[in-house]
């Protein structure tokens, strides 16, 4: 990098991102008892704890009644067989 930095962050991919490849979680939430549990987005996290917290602070547009995170690798696509899940956003 051409710009000189005094103390650039050194981020350890393996520890801080959960492996050689980053680890993703999909986020699901329910607004109130009358609403379905819906997909609201996706977060990257190296462990379940950080996935929960990051999801909570990023998808805080509502006071969710319920929220959960699912590791992306656990999602099995049905209509898009063989491809990775492309739910990701919204």
């Amino acid at each position, binding site marked *: 990098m051409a710009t000189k930095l005094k103390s650039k*962050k050194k*981020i*350890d991919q*393996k*520890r*801080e*991102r959960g492996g050689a490849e980053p680890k993703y979680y999909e986020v699901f939430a329910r607004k109130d008892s009358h609403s379905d549990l819906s997909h609201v987005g996706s*977060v*990257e*996290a*190296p*462990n*379940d*704890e*950080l*996935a*929960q*917290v*990051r999801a*909570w*602070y*990023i998808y*805080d547009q509502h006071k969710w009644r319920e929220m959960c995170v699912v590791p992306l690798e656990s999602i099995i696509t049905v209509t898009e067989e063989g491809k990775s899940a492309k739910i990701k956003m919204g």
Partner: protein
Amino acid sequence: MAYTPGNPGTKLDKNFENDLLAIADTKLVLGNWYAECVMNGRSLPDFAAILGMCTANYGHTRAIYQYLAAHGHDYDHLERGRGPEEMCSANLLDEAPSGWEDFIVSTWLTELSTWMMASGFLNHEDRAVAGIAKKIGQETYFHLKYSQGWFQIIGEGKKQTSLFQKAYAHRFPLALQWFGPARGKDTVHDAGIRDVPLKKLRDAFIKEAAGAEKLLGADLTQEKSIKFADDWRGDARRFGAMPDGLFEVVRFKDAELAH
């Protein structure tokens, strides 16, 4: 978080007020820690999480100041009328974090100790107080989880683990000191304002604070003998005045814009 008055107007027990102010001021400083350190965050979602914890802590401070203001205090004075010698934040947060590991240790110990203290008021007879304590608990749940997530990451690095241990050895006694002398007086409990004895909260804090060992996968030293010398301000739960450098960060600026 909005404050709903319970029994406004009544005068509060002095020691109870001191405890509330110690929690509020410590959280004010903690909020500023998050604000000052957010750009040190190590991932994009962490920037958002740190700002979320920043907002939550400021919210707790504000709710407590508002409660005190409903009971004879001047809100403006509480928020921006006090000098460094009147601030009641924990010594734990005086010194700026020396690195990411120290940041995680210090913020975690602060979240944990202030929550312990606040939890003593969950059954307070004034529903406003119980409500504030409950809200602090609900939000701190996520802040503690954030730390726990990081313990695991730090624990996987040798150098990071030793930095964590060093920071812990340095910060833990400062956190414990906030609870006051082990066999000190417990006037708030004696007066029936807090149904849990302080000693029980202190012990619970020690036990919880040792819990990091498991996620970190390494031993931690808990130095428990603390000397309470002459300049201990029991009412403020701290030694001396807030250092000038920190006060300059924490103090509210642009007073003429206050509303």
